[in-house]
């Protein structure tokens, strides 16, 4: 019986590994999403001199769990006169497409140090040699608008309809700038493959941070980031759900878990955009330091160890008994992980790529929240003018300038 299963596994090892990876990534992404809401509420609260969630669990750490339970157990009414099929399809579409986007992101350069049934296990679901990585991601982003637009249309209500209309108009306008702004990066890398785009930024290993695409493509990055924020419907481009004008925009008529699906989709696309920004402009999994500075390999430990110790110290003084148990536990885990990384150089070396990519993603997520905490919303005509009259011309200028410089390098540059 057992041998039958091992035979089946080794025959379909690639399929089995992919399924396990999908399950794992789904779990990780959904957990990160949940804690992203906590992070966002906490950061915005502190920017506004509030405490944010702090009652449910130590520092409000159990708030996402409480929210999740609430989403599951709330009454889920279907409004009268909705187009049932499309009404149920829309949140499904939004969530499925957002999660598919993450599947294309490579999270690390090397496969795991050990193989399963002779199959190398890479970090990330799609194999690292997807030739059209970035194009496939844009294809998924392009489809993402349907979730919002159809939700607005099918709800049979005026505010969602307006939200859906705004969303599709906004997507059409910013899609162009989004695609044009990465052409510069593609020209420099000469490939659509995300892995090759990162490797092209490491041609001078000693340059470190200076070799990244952000320096020659500063204009492209600006256009890309602004257009990407507009595509993810976040502040200051969250007109489709502008609560001061449209109640809650396209998801006004959605309650309970169908609303949660839109919510998760939005946060997932935030993560995808952060991944894309760090991969295309900030070197992906490359370290910002020159390759010869090997002492920087201890940076993950140097962050985890003191932070873990601080969490222990903070935890034993916490006011609730629950916090006095949980927080030191988390702190011990962090400090232990930091210590283990020092003691296991092989693991430490492997963790470098994912560590840098995840730190960059975290920075971009913080920028997202930061902007939500500081910037006011655009007016609708400003939004359109900004997209068509500023972003699109700028990104076209960027493409032309980049191609001229590459041409000049090819003609007169160093042989």
């Amino acid at each position: 019986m057992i041998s039958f299963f091992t035979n089946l596994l080794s025959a379909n090892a690639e399929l089995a590994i992919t399924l396990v990876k999908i399950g794992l990534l789904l779990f990780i992404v959904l957990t990160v999403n949940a804690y992203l809401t906590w992070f966002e509420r906490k950061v915005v609260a502190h920017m506004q001199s509030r405490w944010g969630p702090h009652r449910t669990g130590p520092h409000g750490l159990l708030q996402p769990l409480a929210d999740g339970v609430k989403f599951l157990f709330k009454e889920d009414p279907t409004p009268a006169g909705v187009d049932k099929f499309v009404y149920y399809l829309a949140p499904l579409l939004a969530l499925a497409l957002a999660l598919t986007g993450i599947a294309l992101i490579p999270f690390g350069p090397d496969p795991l140090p050990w193989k399963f049934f002779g199959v190398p296990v890479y970090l990330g679901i799609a194999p690292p040699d997807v030739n059209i990585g970035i194009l496939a991601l844009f294809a998924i982003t392009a489809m993402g608008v349907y979730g919002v637009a159809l939700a607005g249309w099918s709800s049979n209500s005026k505010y969602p309809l307006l939200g859906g209309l705004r969303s599709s108009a906004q997507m059409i306008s910013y899609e162009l700038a989004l695609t044009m702004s990465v052409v510069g990066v593609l020209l420099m890398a000469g490939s659509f493959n995300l892995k090759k785009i990162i490797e092209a930024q490491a041609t001078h290993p000693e340059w470190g941070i200076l070799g990244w695409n952000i320096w020659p493509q500063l204009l492209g990055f600006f256009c890309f980031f602004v257009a990407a924020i507009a595509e993810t419907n976040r502040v200051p481009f969250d007109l489709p759900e502008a609560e001061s004008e449209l109640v809650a925009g396209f998801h006004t008529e959605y309650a309970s878990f169908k609303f949660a699906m839109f919510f998760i989709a939005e946060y997932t696309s935030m993560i995808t955009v952060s991944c894309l920004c760090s991969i295309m402009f900030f070197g992906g999994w490359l370290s910002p330091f020159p390759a010869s500075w090997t002492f920087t390999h201890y940076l993950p430990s140097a962050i985890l160890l003191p932070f873990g110790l601080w969490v222990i110290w903070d935890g034993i003084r916490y006011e609730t008994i629950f916090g006095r148990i949980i927080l030191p536990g988390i702190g011990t885990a962090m400090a232990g992980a930091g210590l283990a990384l020092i003691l296991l150089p092989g693991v430490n070396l492997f963790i470098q790529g994912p560590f840098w990519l995840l730190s960059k993603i975290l920075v971009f997520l913080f920028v997202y929240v930061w902007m939500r905490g500081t910037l006011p919303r655009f007016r609708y005509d400003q939004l359109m003018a900004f997209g068509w009259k500023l972003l699109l011309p700028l990104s076209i200028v960027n493409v032309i300038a980049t191609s001229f410089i590459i041409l000049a390098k090819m003609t007169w540059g160093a042989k």
Partner: protein
Amino acid sequence: MTAPLIVFFVLAALAVIGAVSLILQKHPIHSALSLIVVMIALAGLYLLLGAEFVAAVQIIVYGGAIMVLFVFVIMLLNAGVEEHTSVSKMAGPPGLLLVVALAGLIAATIVRSTDSIQSTMQTGEMSSSLGVSKTLGISNMIFKDFVYPFELTSFLILIAVLGATVLAQREKS
């Protein structure tokens, strides 16, 4: 049956069902959704043929941009369920005849072109064995071999855009 063959039949069935549903649906939005299904199924078929670039562009341009515009317009006009008027009885027999003629034409073309398809498949394998990626091959074709027809086409599109703008402006004044 091999896995690619199964995928092919699933996608082909999806495309045909989507196309039929596009015609049979009463509501414009449902028809538009069916058309999107057709586009995506076609993209899957391109992917199965190894044309990754064409597949991605099919979804970005047709599935994304153009169909979003369709849906946008339908939503903006708030188009309702279509009303069926009495269909002309004359339309039946000639339509059937045309369907048969078109199907025959396509079938004949496929039968006749089997040799050339096989030869292009062989050359495609050759180019991939030379280490030339398919996207590179397409761009070489567009921007080197057929650059003048390509530029002429874009000029044509520009004229169409200008024409549409002029017409819209005239209506306003």
